[in-house]
């Protein structure tokens, strides 16, 4: 019976979500592009130890295979893949393919070096070896600010480029604080809505739902107008004498917290409200009439009954907050970007789908782990859904 009720949804998600997502996430370990145009070169490089330059025979193989691939879309895809590893590899490969040395003209490796001196560096060949596929750890390592050196060991990409671990931490941190803010603002309001007369509650509910009707762009624009240097909020604070100089409220973390909390607050209020609506007023009254202080009665009797609502609301808000990127992009500073910004960048602006898949996969795994931990904690504290 229970299975039959859940099955339609699972089937729906399996087809419309799990299948396409699995294919996208697989791209984070899939590495077919270089192999596709240079099957022999990559096979020969597999035997190369990476210390000195590879033998001229490898260069001869590559010249032949580049010649065959010239002008095709596959060459471009392989060039892009190598460019993810070393800046400028794309134009190096395309340029080399355009100016290939004639076969059999002495040392093939020296001929390549004559086309571009970078062919005389081991790191150039090591990049091809790393991209030989069919599977790769390149993108997953990159998503953790790591790389594989020419000799094969794993090292940091260096302080200059290390960013993703930091951004991941920042994303979780922002999500955490937005959740705390939403709970602090939402719980009392949900309580008010659940306990007020239905006449008043329904009118107040309109106010809670109003933000849903203004689209994302309108809301962010409104916050910019409100929070800017000469905006109404600063004007008000100045007018009542709280500040002398305008506060920086936008294009920094404050703006991000304000805007995301505003968007997600209803997602905290409604689950809390729907749970509180189901709690009768009698238990609280009974506790108070038995002499318990109202605060104590609230903490001991009412609060535990609302735990399912808190669990649902915090999960919804936290996980939704992790995925925000348009809002922080439009009203955050340069160091307020969240992980989804980068995923969108790699998906849409540079088609580095391997990197997008790796970042998305890591976000998925970490969130799932947090969910499991949270489920344990919430499960112990009360009858949480998770």
């Amino acid at each position, binding site marked *: 019976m229970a299975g039959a009720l859940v099955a339609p949804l699972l089937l729906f998600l399996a087809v419309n979500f799990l299948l396409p997502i699995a294919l996208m996430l697989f791209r984070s370990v899939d590495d077919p592009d270089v192999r596709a145009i240079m099957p022999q070169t990559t096979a020969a490089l597999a035997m190369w130890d990476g210390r000195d330059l590879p033998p001229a025979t490898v260069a001869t193989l590559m010249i032949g295979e580049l010649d065959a691939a010239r002008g*095709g*879309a596959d*060459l*471009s*895809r392989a*060039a*892009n893949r190598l*460019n*993810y590893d070393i*800046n*400028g*590899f*794309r*134009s190096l490969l*395309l340029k080399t393919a355009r100016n290939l040395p004639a076969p059999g003209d002495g040392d093939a490796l020296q001929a390549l070096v004559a086309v571009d001196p970078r062919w005389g560096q081991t790191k150039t060949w090591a990049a091809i070896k790393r991209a030989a596929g069919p599977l790769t750890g390149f993108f997953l390592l990159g998503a953790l600010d790591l790389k594989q050196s020419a000799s094969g060991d794993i090292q940091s990409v260096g*302080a*200059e*480029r*290390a*960013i993703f671990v*930091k*951004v991941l931490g*920042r994303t979780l941190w922002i999500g955490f604080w937005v959740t705390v803010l939403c709970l602090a603002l939402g719980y009392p309001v949900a309580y008010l809505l659940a306990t007020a007369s239905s006449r008043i509650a329904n009118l107040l509910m309109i106010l809670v739902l109003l933000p849903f009707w203004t689209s994302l762009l309108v809301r962010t624009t409104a916050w*910019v*107008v409100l929070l*800017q*240097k*000469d*905006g109404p909020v600063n004007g008000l604070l100045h007018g009542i004498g709280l500040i002398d100089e305008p506060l920086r409220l936008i*294009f920094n973390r404050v703006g991000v917290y304000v805007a995301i909390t505003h968007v997600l607050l209803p997602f905290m209020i409604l689950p809390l409200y729907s749970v509180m609506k189901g709690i009768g007023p009698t238990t609280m009254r009974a506790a108070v009439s038995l002499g318990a202080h109202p605060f104590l009665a609230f903490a001991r009797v009412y609060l535990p009954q609302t735990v399912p609502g808190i669990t649902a609301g915090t999960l919804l808000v936290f996980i939704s907050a992790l995925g925000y990127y348009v809002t922080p*992009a*439009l009203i955050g*500073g*340069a*160091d307020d*970007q969240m992980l989804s910004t*980068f995923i969108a*960048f*790699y*998906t*849409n*602006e*540079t*088609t*580095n*789908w391997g*990197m997008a898949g790796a970042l998305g996969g890591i976000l998925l795994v970490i969130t799932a782990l947090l969910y499991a931990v949270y489920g344990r904690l919430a499960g112990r504290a009360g009858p949480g859904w998770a």
Partner: protein
Amino acid sequence: MHPSKRVGIAMAVSLCALWLTGSATARELTVTAWGGSSQAAQKKIYYEAFSAKSGVKLLEDSWSGGIGLLRTKVQGGNANWDVVQVEADEAVLGCDEGLFEKLDWTMLGGKDSFIKGAATDCAVGSVVWTTGLVYDGNRFKDGPKTWADFWDVAKFPGKRTMRKGAKYTLESALMADGVAPADVYKVLRTPAGVDRAFKKLDELKPHIVWWTAGSQPPQLLASGEVVMGDAYFSRVLAANKADGRNFKVVWPASVYAIDFWVILKGSPNKAQAMQLVTFMTRPENQKQFPPLALQGITSIEAGKQIDAAVVPSIPTSPDNLRVALPLDVEFWVDNTDQLNQRFNAWASK
């Protein structure tokens, strides 16, 4: 259940089904550009005129860029666009990757009839736009004239706005550091040059408000949140006309780039799409664009026929072209990923 209720539900369901599948007919020729007032201008002088002349019905759509979206549409199949206006790096990447059809250059009048860089095998230049130094003329009587002035917070106090990313920002930093426009990309191609640009950016970092959408800087300038910025010139100049603002643009501190028309691979309306692209690049049609959009055009012949009153406001007039820096598309296609990563690492410090 009451019978009338059942009939009602059945009717509702069939209506829904009708509505859901209503659009499954053969697709009409579709052109996609960047929306806003520039697409409104295109509609007036290109789309409607083309439909009237050829009798071909034309659908229009708009987008905000992203080669990933084009790759998805073409490789996934069943693409719903035919002619698309793309940015220069999208034109290069997409052409290499085989996402676009090859253009018929005899129809277009030969590659030589277009300005330098505006003609490739599968893309033809549509507009030329500029991003660069802008400021509010009501705030500074004797305003900034170079990127070095932009960096000079003692002489010109106040916040500046720049694009949140490496592109344009690194170029400006190098020019502020004294690199001649002609040498900017030569310097940027060396690791030391990139270091130098970031070091120069360090100086200005506390004074920068970063923008993401091009709509933001004019808004920030208008509200007084910033005193100058790196912004698209056309919108800023339009504000002077439409809103009576006194915004100034500095051509010697600007970068210009070309947008292109492309035809998506496998378009079912390829022949009509080619006709449309031809129509939109004819000199007699293109010359009407600059007065409406305050952007430059790519046909050399059309450039000579532009209304003299708007010549000072567009990127492709000779005086402006001479002093501005052309965007090096090859450089950015090669370096976007890693420099963007480095930019964000830098911004987080």
